[in-house]
């Protein structure tokens, strides 16, 4: 017998076409982009005009698409459109984005960056007036990128808010990522740059929410040195960042799950949720990809941790009169931190009567071993038997640039909007481990109401097969869940709810809520 209904997935039926207004809005946006690429002179007016065209095109498109119909789920035709179903347009967009990232990371001169003191030209030059206004120095390729990134989160953020205007969770969370990007990642750091001459020679990251291990060179010698030698601001940032990494973040993750960061604050998450929203259904839901995900993301986490420890170890000395912290002290601190974590995990395991946490214990023991090994091999302080900085350079190239940028965003239209967050981000890995084992967060399912339709799984950007839990009546406890809440929003039967609870933290997710047959 023939496979029924095959045509649906292969041939696109007569989809609703974009109307003239929507097309015009896209054209306006593209015109703005074109202006940036083609402009020959530095003019603040032209720059402002291009920004205005880009954002008003996007916002106008959203207005036409969503505000002209009643509020509700707006997923009609998603799988029929070329751009959002890996069609020709999807591939072209993917290629252009990938190409852009390659130029950005490795060939900024083609964007017009002035090399060795030469003035900027082209695209980078076009942004000079704005950079001069904000911080009093010419633009760099990173300034251009930051500006466009912020513009994208802002414009697509408005689109997202209108799309989910019936849903307060979505609205608040989107306002939060828009503010985080606009102020913490962009305006405040750029303005601070301009405040003090010193900052340009002693640069350090002033984006407070960009934390280690996402910001993998936070603990580099030059970075720590720059922070600790630029007075009050530097010290404040250093201390706040350390608090964030070791106290604030674990606490917030304990209370609310990793969503407080991944879908409320983080810049990568912010772009994924706004500009990437149209691609969320392209994430792979298979068990196989879940397996790949777990291996990949946790290996990267281990790499970053070991690399950071080795790098710090490498620049610390043994002379206590010259270093705040000597190598021996550092080793003792790190090992004790790990031992304490291990003891806490043991304690949870006892409380919960579960032994599936053994892996975590082994991981911690392994790490302690590696650290002692580094200590033993000291002298050069080289982990992995090659120079730490060489190793870090490769990490930066492969993970920091290629994975998070080129693949992470370039592949939005091919593998979904959270490729990086799901497979690569070490920050997501840490928060995820904590979310899974020691957080009040979970998604509960509403008794027996699930009809196994699959909307939740389809629209989960992290590729979680939400349905497989919901149809059993089992709470969803997954390390990768970023708490975007879209599964709960698209569920047509009101089955899913994101929530926090402390009472059953060790047993959460184990019970089935479905009414199952009672055998007496």
């Amino acid at each position, binding site marked *: 017998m023939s496979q029924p209904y095959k045509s649906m997935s292969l041939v696109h039926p007569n989809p609703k076409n974009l109307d003239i207004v929507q097309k015009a809005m896209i054209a306006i946006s593209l015109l703005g982009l074109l202006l940036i690429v083609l402009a020959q002179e530095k003019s603040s007016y032209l720059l402002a005009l291009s920004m205005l065209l880009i954002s008003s095109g996007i916002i106008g498109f959203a207005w036409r698409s969503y505000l002209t119909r009643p509020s509700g789920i707006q997923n009609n035709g998603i799988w029929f459109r070329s751009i959002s179903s890996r069609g020709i347009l999807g591939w072209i967009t993917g290629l252009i984005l990938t190409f852009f990232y390659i130029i950005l990371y490795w060939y900024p001169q083609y964007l017009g960056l002035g090399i060795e003191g030469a003035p900027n030209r082209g695209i980078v030059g076009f942004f000079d007036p704005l950079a001069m206004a904000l911080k009093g120095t010419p633009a760099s390729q990173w300034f251009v990128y930051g500006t466009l990134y912020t513009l994208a989160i802002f414009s697509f953020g408005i689109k997202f808010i209108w799309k989910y205007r019936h849903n307060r969770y979505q609205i608040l969370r989107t306002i939060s990522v828009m503010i985080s990007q606009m102020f913490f990642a962009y305006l405040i750091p750029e303005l601070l740059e301009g405040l003090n001459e010193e900052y340009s020679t002693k640069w350090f990251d002033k984006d407070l929410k960009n934390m280690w291990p996402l910001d993998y060179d936070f603990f580099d010698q030059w970075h720590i040195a720059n922070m600790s030698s630029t007075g009050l601001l530097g010290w404040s940032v250093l201390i706040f960042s350390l608090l964030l990494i070791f106290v604030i973040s674990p606490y917030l993750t304990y209370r609310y799950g990793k969503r407080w960061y991944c879908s409320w604050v983080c810049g990568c998450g912010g772009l994924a949720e706004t500009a990437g929203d149209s691609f969320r259904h392209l994430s792979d839901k298979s068990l196989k990809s879940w397996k790949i995900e777990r291996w990949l993301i946790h290996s990267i986490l281990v790499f970053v941790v070991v690399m950071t420890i080795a790098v710090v170890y490498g620049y610390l000395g043994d002379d206590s009169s010259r270093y705040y912290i000597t190598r021996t002290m550092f080793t003792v601190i790190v090992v004790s931190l790990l031992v304490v974590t291990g003891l806490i995990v043991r304690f949870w395991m006892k409380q919960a009567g579960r032994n599936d946490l053994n892996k975590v214990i082994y991981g911690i023991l392994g790490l302690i071993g590696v650290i002692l090994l580094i200590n033993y091999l000291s002298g050069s302080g080289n982990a992995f038997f090659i120079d730490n900085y060489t190793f870090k350079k490769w990490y930066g190239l492969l993970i920091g640039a290629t994975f998070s940028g080129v693949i992470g965003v370039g592949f939005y239209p091919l593998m979904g909007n959270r490729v990086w967050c799901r497979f690569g981000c070490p920050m997501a890995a840490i928060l995820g481990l904590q979310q899974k084992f020691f957080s009040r967060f979970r998604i509960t399912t509403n008794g027996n109401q699930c009809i*196994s339709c699959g909307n939740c799984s389809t629209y989960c950007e992290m590729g979680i097969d939400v349905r497989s839990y919901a149809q059993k009546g089992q709470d969803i406890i997954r390390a990768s869940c970023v708490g975007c809440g879209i599964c709960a929003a698209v569920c047509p039967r009101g089955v899913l709810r994101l929530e926090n609870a*402390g009472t059953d933290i060790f047993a959460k997710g184990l019970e089935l809520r479905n009414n199952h047959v009672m055998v007496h």
Partner: protein
Amino acid sequence: MHIAIIGNGISGISAARWIRKLSDYKITVISSESEYFFSRTALMYIYMGHMRYEDTKPYEDWFWDKNRINLIHDYVESIDFQSDTLSLKDQGQISYDQLIIATGSAPNRFGWPGQDLKGVGSLYHLQDLGVMEHYSRDLSRAVIVGGGLIGIEMAEMFLSRDIPVTMVVREKSFWDNILPTEESLMISRHIVRHHIDLRLSSNLKEIVDDGAGRASAVIIAETGEKIPCGYVGLTAGVHPNIQWLGETPIETNRGILVSDRLQTNIDNVWAIGDCVELRNPMPGRRGVEAIWYTGRMMGETCAYNICGQEVSYDPGIWFNSAKFLDIEYQVYGDIRPYATPEGQESLYWEHLEGEKSVRIVYEKASKKVVGFNLMGIRFRHEVCEQWIKTSTSVEEVLINLDLAHFDPEFYQSYKNELLETYYKLTGHQLSAKEMNGLDKVLSFLNS
């Protein structure tokens, strides 16, 4: 032991999965519609472009091999109950030790003139989507006959492609044979707001042939009006799919008659899901209940019985859910259509914008709550069920209403509005407790 199951819908598949969990028996599932189990409830989303066909499959294709559930994609033409064998259309014969019939429903057609013309379809099988798709191209108007859950889904499907829709509905107000009056009116308004041409109190007289064997219009019985269209959807309910059995020793009425353990009159033959009619339905429930979760529960119950543990089918307290365009609907317990029955009182609150409402029905004398009916608001199943099961008084429910709140975080709760409505209704001033959060819910459910 070899268990054969006819039908790979939710009921047949639930049975297969549970038999595998409970035993090592050989399991074969024979089904003609699709090779793999897919979710019928998601049919509309395929047409609307929300999902692809493969996204509606609840299990990946490797699942069946891994769990040693043998799938056969074929049609069962007849059953020989003497020799315990099935005759398949293409693949010969299969013998079984135990047989489970789970063949679902078939759409109703009431003998309307023209019902077999080209361009007339229903919405039940995967293949029906192909038909809809075929006629959707350049479609000037679709007419849908029947105002039930499937009718409104079909209307939403056409709307998603900007195809004008007329709904011909027998009732005075949409689904008013199930919904209380206010909710029914709310949905009727909502339908019109979506620019659907809703014809209430209207019956189909005939479907007009364009001369080439294709539907070109429908005629309304009451007015004689002729509505030109290119597709006619017949969605006036379903009935148990048992005609294919022909002359059979299995006892049937509307559906295949089964005992509390889901056994038919033949010892080694069982029946579950939509195709079944219970001999002794629980009080307040019907013999034929063609819905998703009953199929799932029957599958599980049947598996236990086949694997040697006697269990009676017990679907618990009635509940269901649906979505009418943008309005979600949930019901828990016993909610009657039209006006509230004698002896009961109905606490009804509707949002000013008229697209959200809560109805709590209770017995006037004892005040014990009997049901919840919700539009555009989500309540927690287990909590409502526990309240109904334990005959909780409506006042207790209102005071603790937070426990049932299941809308996403930051959504407004409407408990004060409900308390106020209760005050107007009875003169009793109650004040709500802060019962927010899952912690409180868990301690309530475990108490």
